[in-house]
């Protein structure tokens, strides 16, 4: 066990964990943040995507030690009140079906919009093709990302 300092959803924490334990299971089991999901354990499906210092990473294969001194944002930290443009757009377009993969989809989408405020369909394909959805909501995800870009532009960027 090792002490690891990190910031999660704006809160500075010192946690005790096996350094090799994947960030996903630290979030879910040690911190009670169950929004990020387990889907494959091999960085193949994207259900576990969270932001680490602003990058969209696969928390199922990221040892928690790699988050030392860094900032983690999970779906719970995007906003609780659904005010983030991605959440607003997902709500407006009624994207989810079962919803299990959507936290990962939304975190990938939020990261894309941070990097490209007005992504093209090709940008979306590039950024989102590592996120699987078994219900097949891709057409709506694509629409929702374009819509989130519009919302963000009207609001003058992220809240």
């Amino acid at each position, binding site marked *: 066990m090792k002490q690891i300092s990190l910031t999660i959803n704006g809160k500075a924490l010192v946690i005790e964990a096996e350094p090799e334990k994947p960030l996903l*299971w630290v979030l879910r089991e040690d911190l009670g*943040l169950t929004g990020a999901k387990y889907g494959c354990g091999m960085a*193949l499906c994207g259900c576990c995507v969270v932001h680490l210092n602003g990058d969209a990473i696969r928390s199922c294969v990221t040892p928690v030690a790699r988050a030392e001194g860094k900032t983690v944002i999970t779906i719970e930290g995007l906003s609780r009140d*659904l005010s983030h443009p991605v959440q607003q757009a997902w709500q407006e377009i009624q994207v989810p079906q079962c919803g299990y993969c959507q936290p990962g989809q939304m975190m990938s989408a939020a990261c894309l919009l941070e990097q490209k405020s007005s992504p093209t369909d090709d940008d979306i*394909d590039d950024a989102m093709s590592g996120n699987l959805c078994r219900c*097949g909501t*891709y057409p709506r995800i694509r629409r929702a990302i374009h819509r989130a870009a519009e919302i963000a532009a009207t609001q003058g960027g992220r809240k």
Partner: protein
Amino acid sequence: MNDAIISRRFFLTAAVAAGGGMLIGSTLRPEMLGAFATRSRVSDVPLNAWIRISPDDVVTLISSQSEMGQGVMTTLPAVLAEELGADWSRVKIEFSPTMPAYRNPRINWQFTGNSESTTGFFELLRTMGASAREMLIAAAASRWGVKADECFTENGKVIHKPSGRSSTFGEVAEDAAKIVPPAQPKPKPESEWKLLGKPLRRVELPAKLNGSAVFGLDFSVPGMVHAAVKQSPAHGGAVASFDKSSVINLPGVIDVVPIPNGIAVVAKQYWQARQALQSLKVTFDDGPNANLSTESLNAQYRAALDGGAWKTVKTEGRAVSGEEMTGKFAAVVSQEYESQFLAHATMEPMNCTAHVTEDGCAVWGPLQGNELTQLTLAATLKLPPEKVTINRTLLGGGFGRRLLTDFVVQAALVSRAVGKPVKVVWSREEDMQHDVYRPATLQRVTAGLDKAGRPTAMAHKVVSPSILQYVFAPAVTEDNDPSCLEGLMETHYEIPDQRVDFHLLKTGAPTSVLRTTGYGPNIFAVESFIDELAHRAKADPYQFRRGLLKDERALKALDTVAEKSGWKKRAPKGVGRGIAYTEAFRTHIAHVVELSVANNLVKIHRITCVIDCGVALDPEICKNSIEGGTVWGLGVAFKSNITFKNGRTVESNFNGYEIAHMFETPPIEVYIVNSNTKGMGGTGEVGPVTLVPAVANAIFAATGKRYRSLPLSKHGLRIG
């Protein structure tokens, strides 16, 4: 308690709720109770309520149906709210316990599946809603001393039209509960619908957008411990030996527990259990299927098709067999079609939490098969069914997999062994390699043609393992499984002589229900074959189908998809269009796929789909479902494939078992034709059914190459 008979199967019941308010429920007639025959109809009234109206005006619908993305938490309460005239913002949903009263009236069994969440309950719910409305009105009218027919309901109030006087539902609910339910309540005509037929915001969506939604994997109870499992790598094998001491001292480990076909490591945290499982010394006996492989299965299918015993399951007209057609028609055409094994691969792997105590067993999880699960656990734990409580979380996909009980039984057995609540979570590898697969099928279709090349006789032979064996055993016999024949028994094509022969194949590969069930492989064969006949006759595949159809709904779906896809406009050079039509799950559906192929790379330009599901209670939810089904179909057509070697499933994760990605998904347009007929159809499973043959037909149109076996990756094709 007061009751009225509303159907051959159900009594409608009404009672005063504890703390005031009103309960409306339904109870099966005693002769329908089956396994529950001893339960008193009277004593379970408060428990079998479908509707609760509280004194504070909240209307609660108790739903027997699980939410797995099909929107049932929104559409079913909307049916109720519509009939009641309730305030939509004050309607809530709760999941029901497992009791006969909550059975699907069509099948007399409690489960979520077969595209019936809405269609199976619509009539029952609107009847109950209408009944409750009439009782609320009667109670208010009697209190006011006015005529009931001068009153109506709106926004959770009973209103007396002439005087404008009103009472909230909560104020009159207790009085209403004392009234005998009307024997023939009158549901509202569609023209008066305010909620139904329009898109509503899905009620469970906000929780799915901020991480607060609770799936099975997210569920916890105090004192819960965690288990990771390893099942016999070979299907049908078992643990030969294990050494508990190899892991018992590892961090967090509590116990090692044998389960029916494997072993579970129990620890304080799941990650600890998972890590310890990797270090566990365990050996397996491969059992009777050690030599099972894709090659051995192929040989078995081939032997069955060429020389197996046949059960003739459908005969129409002269019912000529394929072999007898020679010389009797202007021409005879015969082709074979092959569909592959498929995994459910729900994004949420199998998991379940169970707590077995001296008093009984409670489970919590993402479950579709409420009643089967209850009865299976009761039999396993030697408990009366009522001591087994089935609680449902949200489901991270279902597609039929969660009708089965294997993972639930594991959780219960491990909990009993350690005396604590336990959550069992399967790794993705366990989930994929211990799935119960959509069975592969091998089919031969033979047609006798007239001089114009139109089929006047069709004979269809199907070889398939069982679909229903594990989920609805009573329907399966030694040589028949009705689900394997879906789409063949009730075709709309007007062909005078028809015959279907079936061979129920026994294999070592575990097979069960998966989205599209028998319709998927059968309609791939039928719609590919019809397309081949059209091209052979040098006819337009759309017009050729039209010429074989009389059913108005079929023609409307086909005509609409042709119109919306621009079928009649000449496709650009190199672009091929494929069309397919069927009725499945009581919905008429047609797809047109437009694509081009270069160097085996398939560029899909556009997909158009039309459905007629009778009445779309929520058109947006229906569309989302059909879009998703279409995307699912792209995976089936091009990529998804389960194979076997040495008794084992080869694919273990999403690198080996591929599903469609975002970049492979073209623009998809979905149009709903509401024929407003009484036969409402489902939309959960039908999407992939016509997409797959439409893809194969489009590839033929674009390249002149006909592919008759799936997935297309076998032939080197991929989406680019």
